[in-house]
């Protein structure tokens, strides 16, 4: 059984057509192993979010191949019409802001996806409570997101991303809205999740202080993705 969770080969993303076309990503190839926390860095506008959206089956690449787990999901075209099902079953998303559904309680936010995937309410609740306990916010299970602090909400968002036992977690600047202490907590948490849950985590970040906490760093350089060592990072 392969330990590779994400594999991207010769991925290209072109915006526009003809003379006005522009390649944002041009021949990106890399892979991420299960249990790995990988930071994705690049200057603003270099295509980090675009790359994340392509891996997350949200935005269609122009060409290339994407493997998620053992499944090839893209080979110059989506290999399934139900990309949303792939997202629902394989991927957990964490965003800059928590983006919890404001009209659902903490528990309901966490159980929404598993229940949509056919899990019973009891089963989904049990798993959600385990996660909330893991993140030390079980006592807030029946609270509304509006009554929680930013850090607590971000932990709920991470719990939501994990609720469906995803193989991959895509985190888009999850520490952008947090102070340094909270940011370190969140990244450590992601690292722990990667190991404990055996999932591959790609975290887009601008925060250099977070990089030493990651296993590897991928950088978008000249429209390609390269691996860099922490010490090589001068500015992101």
């Amino acid at each position, binding site marked *: 059984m392969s330990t590779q969770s994400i594999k991207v080969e010769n991925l290209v993303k072109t915006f526009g057509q003809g003379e006005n076309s522009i390649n944002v990503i041009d021949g990106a190839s890399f892979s991420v192993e299960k249990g790995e926390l990988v930071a994705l860095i690049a200057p603003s506008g270099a295509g980090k979010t675009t790359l*994340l959206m392509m891996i997350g089956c*949200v*935005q269609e690449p122009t060409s290339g191949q994407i493997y998620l787990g053992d499944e090839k999901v893209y080979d110059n075209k989506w290999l399934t019409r139900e990309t949303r099902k792939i*997202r*629902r079953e394989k*991927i957990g998303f964490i*965003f800059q802001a928590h983006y919890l559904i404001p009209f659902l309680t903490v528990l309901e936010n966490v159980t929404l996806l598993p229940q949509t995937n056919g899990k019973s309410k009891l089963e989904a609740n049990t798993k959600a409570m385990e996660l909330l306990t893991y993140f030390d916010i079980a006592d807030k299970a029946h609270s*509304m997101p509006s009554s929680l602090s930013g850090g607590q909400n971000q932990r709920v968002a991470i719990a*939501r991303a994990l609720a469906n036992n995803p193989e991959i977690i895509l985190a888009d600047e999850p520490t952008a809205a947090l102070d340094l202490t909270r940011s370190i907590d969140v990244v450590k948490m992601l690292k722990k999740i990667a190991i404990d849950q055996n999932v591959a985590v790609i975290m887009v970040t601008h925060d250099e202080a977070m990089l030493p906490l990651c296993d590897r760093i991928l950088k978008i350089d000249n429209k390609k993705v390269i691996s860099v060592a922490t010490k090589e990072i001068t500015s992101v």
Partner: protein
Amino acid sequence: MINLAQKDISHTFGKFIVTAMGVGMLLGIVLIMIGVYRGMIVDAESLLTDINADLWIVQEGTIGPFAEASRIPEDLKDSLKAVPGIDKSAAITFQNIQLPKKTKPVRVVAVGFNPFGDINPLNLTRIIAGRNINKSHYEIVVSAKTGFKLKDKIPLGRNIYNVVGVTKGTVSSSGDPLIFISLKDAQELQFSYSNNRIRNDRYRGIKNIESHIANAIIATVKAGYSAELVAQHINETQYKSVFTYQQQHTILVKNVVETASKQIGLFTAILVVVSTIIIALIIYTMTLEKIKEIAIMKLIGIPNSMIIKMIVQETLLLGLLAFVFGNIFSHLIYSKFPKRVVLEAPDALSLFFVILIASILASFIGVKKVISADPSTAIGG
């Protein structure tokens, strides 16, 4: 499975209820408009039903006395009695008059009839105080809506009339309250002129006009005779227009109420369209307010069907609640209207189905927004 619509509504319950109440008031006005139309029909039928004559004989070539002016000799009532099949006949007049009152004159329709005649146009069950007229002159029975009471004195023309009876629910086809006076008094009020006018007319060579005129002769038909055939016979021999009860009913509903009903119908249709647009705009705004959450839900993999279900359920509930509030609102205020408003369950049921369809149509705009929402907008702040 989590019901997203229920959770969303619970979260903004107050706002949702107030919105439904607002739309409900609009629907309440729709119900009132339909009620006004129904009231017009009931009013139009009221006097006709109370008089309950088989035949209405009016001036030739007219469709009087309600839809057109009609003048007919009073003594025709006597000659009609010789017509085969006629049982009873009586002369009757209708005229709009203003009853003088300290604050503001009251517009009424006066029915003149012979209190000693064969047919009594006043439905005695409608008398709530006093009695019917039993003198040839200066007695009057008024509708309670006029504000006059028993034993009040009302100056009309050259005379003072005593209120001897008060009725409830007696209205003309146009919804004005009815008063009842003797035929002789009615003829004097309608066909007698002032001394100045008579003098003036004399100087101009105009002779005083015959006052023994009525607006219609009403008649009943003996058992075993066809009203239609008797009507045809009178028409051919007396050179008068004759209408059966059913024909007069049709004239009232078609000619007198039809234009007003078309106006109300159009107004009601516009209100329904406006309500639909308002519901659609509310749903669109509600969807726009949630567009970030919708993008997140789409991004994390929640199927469109689940999000669309939320929008449609919210729209239907909004329509349903608005309908309930509309009914409550219309029942609270309908009695305050000056003219009769009749609220009927079948009309409310029809409106319910119209609102149901309108809500479904209105939800399309929200659904379209859901389908077109780009999940990638959730990423990147």
